[in-house]
């Protein structure tokens, strides 16, 4: 009980600092900056945000997924430039689960301190959310392993300090740590709609030493991490939705045409009301997803929780931001106004970790045993 109260108190403090930080220091315009800012990443670390989900034995806060969701919403509402979910939440679940080993503990510790930006290279050319197919293979070799394969959509591009790579070994999903400087590793950067970047990672006979194996059977760990990250990406989308709606309402309240504020036109009022309804549905879907994730009895429960959140938040984020640009009129289509940044971020975040169509399909499979 005391532990729970302590947790709640920490949750409150973390949410307050994330809120205050987002309000005072973050600006949607940061999205126009070219690069991942180490300075902002360090700031997130100093607020404790990078250690929220790490276990207490390595100085993490040991919070639950639901505890960090409000903070992510706050960061999302101001379009945090750095991929917090990809480079913190996703690796936290993997390194947190492997921190019994010396290497895992050290990496997790550094992640929490902001000293290490890890990327997770899990995705490949053909995949589904429920069954991320791993064609990359690892073979035993003298003193370690040889990795071959190609990973896609690795965040944050090449701005990482090391990589967690999944590969099939002995018919199991093994997880390795690479520092990025290995021979045979080629990184191809590609820009994303929101001004960030992803990378394709080509592994050709990449040799890694034995101690770089994080997990020899990590499929469940990876799925759990991906489900959690998907719920957090949904939270970030919900923040974005709130931000875009609030910016648009402000515009409707002040912009005048035909001697009237345009927000007084019923055609626009009803559309604004519809966007608000969708926002509230996202919040409901997210609440349910967090509850279901915490109480999940098996992998299918976790995936279903993630799918219900990501489906709703992805559909809504795109709808809201397209409408937001439309309601702003011409200025909304210029790069000078921030509303377009919400649309670009929505495009990126809604496509990452499975878009709405993918999650609808995944949910249909899980709920009705539908198309495989």
């Amino acid at each position, binding site marked *: 009980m005391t532990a729970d109260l302590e947790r709640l108190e920490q949750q409150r403090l973390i949410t307050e600092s994330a809120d205050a930080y987002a309000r005072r220091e973050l600006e949607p315009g940061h999205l126009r900056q070219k690069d991942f800012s180490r300075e902002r990443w360090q700031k997130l670390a100093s607020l404790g945000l990078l250690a929220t989900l790490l276990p207490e034995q390595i100085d993490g806060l040991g919070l639950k997924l639901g505890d960090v969701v409000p903070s992510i919403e706050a960061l999302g509402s101001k379009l945090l430039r750095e991929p917090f979910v990809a480079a913190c939440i996703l690796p936290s679940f993997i390194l947190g689960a492997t921190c019994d080993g010396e290497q895992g503990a050290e990496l997790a510790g550094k992640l929490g301190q902001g000293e290490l930006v890890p990327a997770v290279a899990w995705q490949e050319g053909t995949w589904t959310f429920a069954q991320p197919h791993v064609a990359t293979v690892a073979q035993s070799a003298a003193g370690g392993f040889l990795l071959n394969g190609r990973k896609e959509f690795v965040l944050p591009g090449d701005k990482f300090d090391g990589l967690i790579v999944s590969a099939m070994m002995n018919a199991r999903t093994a997880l390795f740590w690479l520092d990025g400087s290995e021979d045979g590793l080629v990184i191809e950067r590609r820009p994303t709609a929101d001004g960030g970047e992803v990378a394709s990672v080509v592994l050709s006979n990449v040799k890694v030493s034995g101690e770089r194996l994080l997990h020899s059977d990590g499929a469940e760990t990876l799925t759990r991490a991906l489900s959690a990250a998907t719920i957090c990406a949904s939270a970030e989308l919900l923040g974005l939705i709130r931000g875009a709606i609030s910016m648009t309402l402000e515009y409707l309240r002040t912009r005048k045409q035909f001697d009237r504020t345009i927000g007084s036109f019923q055609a626009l009022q009803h559309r604004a*009301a519809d966007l608000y309804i969708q926002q509230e549905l996202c919040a409901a879907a997210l609440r349910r997803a967090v509850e279901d994730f915490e109480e999940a009895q098996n992998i299918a429960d976790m995936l279903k929780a993630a799918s219900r959140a990501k489906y*709703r938040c992805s559909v809504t984020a795109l709808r809201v931001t397209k409408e937001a640009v439309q309601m702003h009129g011409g200025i909304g289509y210029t790069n000078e106004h921030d509303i377009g940044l919400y649309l670009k971020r929505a495009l990126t975040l809604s496509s990452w970790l499975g878009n709405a169509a993918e999650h609808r399909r995944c*949910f249909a499979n899980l709920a009705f045993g539908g198309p495989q």
Partner: protein
Amino acid sequence: MTEQRDWNALSDQEFRLIVRKFFEDHYPEHLRYSPSRRRLAEMRGWYDTLSRHGWIAPAWPTKYGGMGLSPSKHIIFIEEQEAYGVARVPDHGLIMVGPLLIQQGTDEQRARYLPKILTGEEIWCQGYSEPNAGSDLASLRTEAVLDGDEFVVNGQKTWSTLAQDATHIFLLVRTDKNARKQEGISFLLVDMKAPGITVRPMATLSGHEEFCEIFFDNVRVPKENIVGQINKGWTVAKALLGFERLFLGSPKLAQSALARLMTLAKLTGRDRDPVFLERLAEVQLDVDDLNGIYRHFSAQAGRGEPLGQDISVLKVWGTETFARVADLIVEVADSAGMISGPALFGDAEFDVLSPFYNARPSTIYGGTNEIQRNIIASNVLKLPSA
């Protein structure tokens, strides 16, 4: 046989089990999960059962013969009622007139009317809307003029649900034609046996006679039948808009339509069609998230907090989700979408159009969905009026 207990002293779970058991023991099997509103004649037995056990008025204080349930216990009561598929009894007296008289009536009015609502001896209907006062209710024109100790009422009311079964009606009438719209309105209680009242049931698109038009031709109503002060009826009526607004957006309509859709999908073999299953997933998620917002608001009501204007979200999404599911039923039915009443699917009978018809008024009554969007825009989003 009346049970006098302090229900609120029970734990939620204990109370839930008692309520569930009560419905299982007493509610007639053939009346479960009604596709449309039941008439008084069908529900009379159940009304009597509830009344005999002292369960007819869950939310009324015990001192007036109710169960005295706290908001959170009341929510549980309703949840169990819906889970078991218990149909509504004609309940305007129970959810409108009773609470109103308890709150704003005189001692004489309470003594005169409450006991007969509890026994079902008197059944109430509502007289608010008029042919030219629908969404714009305050422009109502049915007039009451004081003549000695009586009001004389002339005019026409409409959309009075099941008025053909009612013995009494509560009315909004205009008592001051010169005052501003909302300020010249009074709230009257009227015996339907009074000379000059004509009730004309209207068939709906579904073919049922669910509501009526009511004509008032020099109907004389005793002066003491006014609730609250003269010309203050708008305030009186508004006080009724509290808790029950939650139920306009109840997920039960959409949920029962979804269950019907799944049944039909099995009957037609569409449950093996991946394209259909994705659309099913979409409406399933729509209903799940509807449940999510409903729980959010009902928890708020359960804590005794007043519901805000954002409750309109629930009504819009609840009824429009219901309508989408109903559309999908018609689509999946294929050619049988033209059949009135039960259609044949193999050996099974299935009424395709009843949810479709029921969805039509749901987006109209209780404030049209357009009005709900106006409310969200101006009161929640604070968009300007000019």
